[in-house]
């Protein structure tokens, strides 16, 4: 058997380039290999069948991009379609206006619910929230004790009462209201989708706490049964999102695709280890490459996409250079950067940047923390950071789960960066308010400066799975690691 899709497709990929229109024979040849790759990645047979049919329809007769072979073209369509299913409209986790925001976790035995409950609590804390965990698994031996042990490590209270899990969950909700907790996370017992009695029970728990978010916990090692399980849980609970667990393993994780397709809801978080801080935002593009089992093919395809990405990056660099940059823009950019997968690509495009800065290590951890800080500021503060005094700083720190010193340092860096950029480009930062809107517009236009090249940029799609972008804080101290916030942006 072939190891990777790249091996499989090598025949197809060597086909003639730029042959004009995609011919059915080309498409079928590529799709036959892609079908096997998906099956080997544990995507459900039914899902694969529907998926391949859809891609065939989209591909046949379509234009072949000049730089791609038909095999590559089909692969690109497959990849785009995968990314779309896995995270087309990402879960926009909104805290309820009237707290507590109730989150319920459900899934098969051993899928990772209890661990995910603690991780989610930690994540909420990092968002400046004050969560309560509910141990409503009264079935598995020592399940509540497991949750308590995990919760102790992150200093979160656990509510549980023996007897009936429905009453226990309801009690947890009442307790959260009484004690002013703004998030309630309910851990439930593992259950089989075909266990009518227990599925009824989880439905009653759901009725009792009326979750804002019901998250299905899916083990990334699961095979064909993912579809049956997801269907049953979705039919019973109306799942809002998925948490994919054990992604630190080497499973290709095709179940993610099966479940996302069946449920029609995005994968929200990725669990990547047994420790409480092994929790990340989910990256659909990385997952797509992982499922397809290909690195090189994507590199080829990325080259074709690079033109588009480069334009995006250049537009961002342009705004930065204009000095029309507010903290709002900053967050905006951070998000965009994360989407692009690599902050360096932008830094590298900026003129006049020293090699030291160019090669500085900037990763998602830092972005997440910086984002949390800026999000805790008022709109006025974001436009005019100079109004942030000590008391405002303390408020922002509390809201973002960081320290005043961290907030201060971020502001210092931001100011320095703005000043430096302004000076370098011969533009002041005075025009700020007027051009802010224009600066925020997503630049897709072809403003291509000649000669700028990206050396090490591009998407960080690795076969080994997600590796950066941890949400939340270190497990030990409870505070945010200051090193992790040390954004080495230009100007430092």
């Amino acid at each position, binding site marked *: *058997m072939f190891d990777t899709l790249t091996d499989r497709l090598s025949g197809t990929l060597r086909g003639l380039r730029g042959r004009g229109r995609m011919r059915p024979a080309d498409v079928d040849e590529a799709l036959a290999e892609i079908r*096997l790759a998906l*099956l*080997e*990645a*544990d995507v*459900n*047979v*039914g899902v694969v069948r529907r998926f391949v049919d859809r891609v065939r329809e989209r591909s046949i007769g379509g234009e072949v991009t000049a730089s791609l072979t038909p095999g590559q073209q089909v692969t690109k369509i497959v990849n785009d379609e995968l990314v779309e299913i896995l995270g087309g409209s990402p879960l926009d986790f909104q805290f309820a206006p009237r707290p507590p925001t109730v989150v319920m976790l459900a899934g*098969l*035995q*051993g*899928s*990772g619910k209890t661990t995910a409950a603690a991780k989610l609590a930690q994540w909420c804390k990092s968002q400046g929230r004050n969560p309560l965990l509910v141990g409503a698994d009264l*079935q*598995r*031996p*020592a*399940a509540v*004790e*497991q*949750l*308590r*042990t*995990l919760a102790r490590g992150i200093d979160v209270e656990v509510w549980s009462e023996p007897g009936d899990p429905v009453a226990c969950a309801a009690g947890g909700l009442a307790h959260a209201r009484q004690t002013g907790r703004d998030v309630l996370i309910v851990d439930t017992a593992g259950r*089989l*989708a*075909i266990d009518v009695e227990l599925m009824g029970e989880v439905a009653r728990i759901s009725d009792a706490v009326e979750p804002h978010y019901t998250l299905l916990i899916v*083990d990334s*090692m*699961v*095979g*064909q*049964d*993912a579809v*049956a*399980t997801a269907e049953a849980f979705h039919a019973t609970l109306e799942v809002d999102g998925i948490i994919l667990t*054990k992604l*630190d*393993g*080497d*499973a*290709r994780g*095709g*179940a993610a695709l099966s479940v996302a397709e069946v449920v029609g809801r995005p994968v929200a978080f990725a669990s990547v280890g*047994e420790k409480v801080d092994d929790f990340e935002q989910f990256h659909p593009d990385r997952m797509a490459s992982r499922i397809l089992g290909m690195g090189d093919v994507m590199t080829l395809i990325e080259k074709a996409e690079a033109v588009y990405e480069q334009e995006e990056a250049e537009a961002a660099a342009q705004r930065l250079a204009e000095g029309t940059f507010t903290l709002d823009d900053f967050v905006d950019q951070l998000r965009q950067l994360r989407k692009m997968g690599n902050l360096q690509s932008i830094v590298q495009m900026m003129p006049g940047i020293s090699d030291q800065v160019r090669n500085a290590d900037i990763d998602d951890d830092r972005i997440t923390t910086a984002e949390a800080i800026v999000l805790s500021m008022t709109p006025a503060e974001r436009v005019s950071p100079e109004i942030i005094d000590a008391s405002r700083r303390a408020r922002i720190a509390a809201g973002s789960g960081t320290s005043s010193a961290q907030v201060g340092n971020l502001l210092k860096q931001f100011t320095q960066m703005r000043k430096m950029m302004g000076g370098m480009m011969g533009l002041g930062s005075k025009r700020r308010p007027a051009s802010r809107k224009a600066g925020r517009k997503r630049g897709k236009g072809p403003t291509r400066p000649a000669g700028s090249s990206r050396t090490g940029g591009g998407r960080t799609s690795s076969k080994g799975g997600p590796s950066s972008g941890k949400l939340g804080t270190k497990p030990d101290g409870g505070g945010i690691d200051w090193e992790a916030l040390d954004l080495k942006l230009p100007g430092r």
Partner: protein
Amino acid sequence: MATQTPPDGAAERAGGPAETGPLRPAATFASGLASSRRTLRDRLASIRGRRPDGATWESLEEALLGADVGVATTMATLERLRSTADDQDIVDADELVHELADQMRAALDADRSLHVSAPDRKGATPVWLFVGVNGVGKTTTIGKVGARLSAEGQVVVMAAGDTFRAAATSQLQTWADRCGADLISGSAGADPSSVVHDAVSAAAARGADVVLADTAGRLQNRKNLMDELAKVRRVADREPGAVVETLLVIDATTGQNGLSQARAFAEATDVTGVVLTKLDGSAKGGIVFAIEAELGLRVKLVGLGEGANDLVDFDPDSYVDALLGADPDAGVPASHSPEQARPGD
């Protein structure tokens, strides 16, 4: 029962499910697999009684792939079936399914006995070591095996070798209490090898019949954790203990990663058999076909629920019947195992 006695008769069987603990009536293989059976039988129903054609082969392929048998093993299985069909000029889809069931049963024909003593290490305390990735059911299986062996009158000691997972020891303690076994544990974060060693020494001192050693779940791509596990096995196998079974626990919902799990754990710990858990759900656990075929590791026990009694011996005939919906009332003559009782019968 399908399990065979080894030729030398040195190893003993661990007893059937009928004698197990007091909690609730034992699940049977057949009842536990009822749900798997329904869907596959439905799928194959449409091809029965017709001449095999392209659609027939496609249905068979989808049935096997849909049971997690995997691309490579499915292709190899159907390749073989195709050549038999050609040789024997099989013109009826029913007969084809029948032949497939035959071939799959034949592939699963093997010694699946469990060892409760070390023939070459007289006097050593036998240890069963349970290994596998996170959340597959190692601890629960120890609880069930403990219940079974205790009910047979064996004196069981459990070793809380999972010193990593939160509350892992309490979980095992609950199971130990249920069957009256002794539990030996260390503190959280303690070296698992030394906990297991302590347990074996304590068991030897008490003259216990067997030690059931739990280990923390670990993903097979974590080299240091796999090394740690190899060490646990080595230490458990030292005087006064002798590891007689290293059982790899595989969750029936596992997809193709199961093969990589089996490969890595076998390499690190000399796995002697597989426990297939959660077969009471809708997943079919077909990856064990690939594990058996490629690595020669045999499924010995099957988990059919969360209760102490929900453990049975693996019975290849019932398993294949259930997978293919090829039991007698579904139209395939049961010419192969009428004399063999099903577990639980």
